[in-house]
């Protein structure tokens, strides 16, 4: 019953957004609203705010007049899948690195005081400063037949964003058992690894799930931004730029990859939620991130 209500409310939210868009377009001031030289409300022209029906129509029609041209929605979907794959690799790498760092910080108190400030510092480096450097380093990697591809640089950037919430969340989770619980393990003569395996790991799940959810969102953002920055082919970030370039002559087209990116984020959240369902018995006391 509550689930049905959630679905209905969710759908209503989307409809409301569409109604607001069209209502503002119909009733809003044509020149938008400007204060102190800053545009606060957008113009209502077809150039700035195309009709929803035009966007839908554009999404269903072919990209260009070439004979074998795909419809826009298919191009966007394929680009989303490509970006999702890159983000998934980035998230996997980020989660492994983040969890490894958490274990290290758990094991050695000195590592925690040494590494944690650097973790926080690492997240203050702007992505666009990082991207060309990583592409440049990646371009030097040639190991036998293996050659570094541009999408791998993108995945590295995604993992750079994704590892942080995982590391912090995992550390909090691993440290969450009470002293009495840890002492009980000691009284059983359980070593450090056994304590981690049987006590700390299960206790960390309620912290890990929101951390991975955050990490997944970060990986998606990292992927899209890095694709814009490095021009990696095939992804949704590149498509957003390409379509935005024709923003003045084909404004409806530019909204397709944006919608695609939103759906991609929702799909990722869904996948993480599905994984979380299987871990239900560990989630008795889940905490918000």
């Amino acid at each position, binding site marked *: 019953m509550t689930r049905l209500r959630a679905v209905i409310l969710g759908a209503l939210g989307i409809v409301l957004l569409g109604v607001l868009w069209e209502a503002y377009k119909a009733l809003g001031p044509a020149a938008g609203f400007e204060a102190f030289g800053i545009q606060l409300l957008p113009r209502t022209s077809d150039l700035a705010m195309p009709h929803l029906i035009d966007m839908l129509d554009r999404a269903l029609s*072919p990209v*260009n007049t070439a004979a074998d*041209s795909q419809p826009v929605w298919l191009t966007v979907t394929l680009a989303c899948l*490509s970006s999702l794959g890159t983000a998934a690799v980035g998230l996997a790498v980020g989660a492994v690195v983040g969890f490894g760092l958490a274990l290290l910080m758990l094991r050695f108190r000195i590592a925690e005081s040494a590494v944690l400030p650097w973790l926080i510092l690492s997240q203050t480096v702007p992505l*666009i400063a990082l*991207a060309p450097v990583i592409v440049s380093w990646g371009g030097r990697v040639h190991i036998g037949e293996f050659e570094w591809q541009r999408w791998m640089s993108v995945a590295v950037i995604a993992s750079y964003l994704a590892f942080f919430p995982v590391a912090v969340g995992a550390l909090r989770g691993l440290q969450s058992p009470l002293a009495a619980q840890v002492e009980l393990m000691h009284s059983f003569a359980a070593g450090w690894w056994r304590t981690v395996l049987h006590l700390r790991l299960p206790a960390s799940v309620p912290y890990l799930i929101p951390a991975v959810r955050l990490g997944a969102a970060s990986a998606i953002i990292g992927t899209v931004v890095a694709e814009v*920055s490095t*021009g990696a082919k095939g992804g949704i970030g590149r498509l957003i730029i390409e379509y935005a370039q024709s923003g003045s002559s084909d404004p409806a087209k530019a909204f397709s990859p944006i919608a695609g990116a939103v759906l991609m984020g929702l799909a990722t959240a869904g996948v993480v939620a*599905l994984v979380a369902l299987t871990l239900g018995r560990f989630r008795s006391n889940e905490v918000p991130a």
Partner: protein
Amino acid sequence: MRHSKRLVLGIAAAAATAALALSGCTATPSPTESATSGALTPVTLQLQWFAQAQFAGYYAALDQGYFKDEGLDVTIVEGGVDIVPQTVLADGQADYAIAWVPKALASREAGAGITDIAQIYQRSGTLQVSLKKSGITTTAGLKGKNVGNWGFGNEFELFAGITKAGLDPATDVTLVQQNFDESALLAGDIDAAQAMRYNEYAQILETVNPDTGVLYTPADLNVIDWNDDGTAMLQDAVWANTDKLTSDAAYQDQTVKFLKAVIKGWIYARDNPEDAAKIVLKYGPTLGASHQLWQTNEVNKLVWPSPDGIGIINADAWAQTVDIALHAKNLEGSTVITAAPDDAAYTNEYIQKALDALKDLDTTGAGYTPIDVTLLEGGK
């Protein structure tokens, strides 16, 4: 029961994740399609931007096998927002790069060891476009107007032009940072917008004019062409690694071969603009077809005719570029370069060798005539 349901969901989720990971591994094909034959020398060419007809000649050379005929296995690497081709070249990650002369000169001054070996574009493609009703017909007419520019080193022709017209860029015009597209011009935020004749100018012509209900036509627009104004700077050129040019005999030899294929590629684009545009679409299937044909045609006009032979660096045009790069000041008061570049900045040695080897072909394009291209709405 509860558990088995969870298990199924878990497996489904894991499978979905794995499928996504795999699609990431396969959905991005390597840019080169040539077979890895043992005899071919691998060569990497770095572009400034995504695949588009601006680079039609290079893609034509790749697609028509001209590089392979010279024994080269060329990989064309597309650019991106933060990719600086001359830096990629100087870092040794590309063998050749396409870059505008002023930007490359600035990188040279910052220490990049690169040399202009072929000036493919003989003319500048930068325009300052305004709507006819704004009445701006000359550079002097920009006085008191909102003038758009992209910044990032793309603005020096404009600043030189404004200064030449007797205006002060800092006080006589209002400079506006401009986006990729031309919507600010059409919305009236900018009176005169910067546009490449092969790209943004076409985007305007692909837009419906709300006053007439049909697409904008050249008759609706006024254009300032820096080539006519005498403040044009050289743009797309092929750059090579200076050190390797002076010390590496194999690289010198490879450079001549590479340029031979590039010349043949641009001749193909000149003689078969429709096919060249189709080749570009093959490498960039998300682009507009009529837009790319327009771009091929306009780019051809920048390349052809080349009276001394395609790619030869004209000493006068070079001197004009260097002069503006030395003297035109932007709003921050800085110039592109602070000292004249040394002799290694350009050489005609390799392009001349390539031209001599292709004597049978028409490498000047004296009789070149552009085609007529009909743009469709949105460039489709």
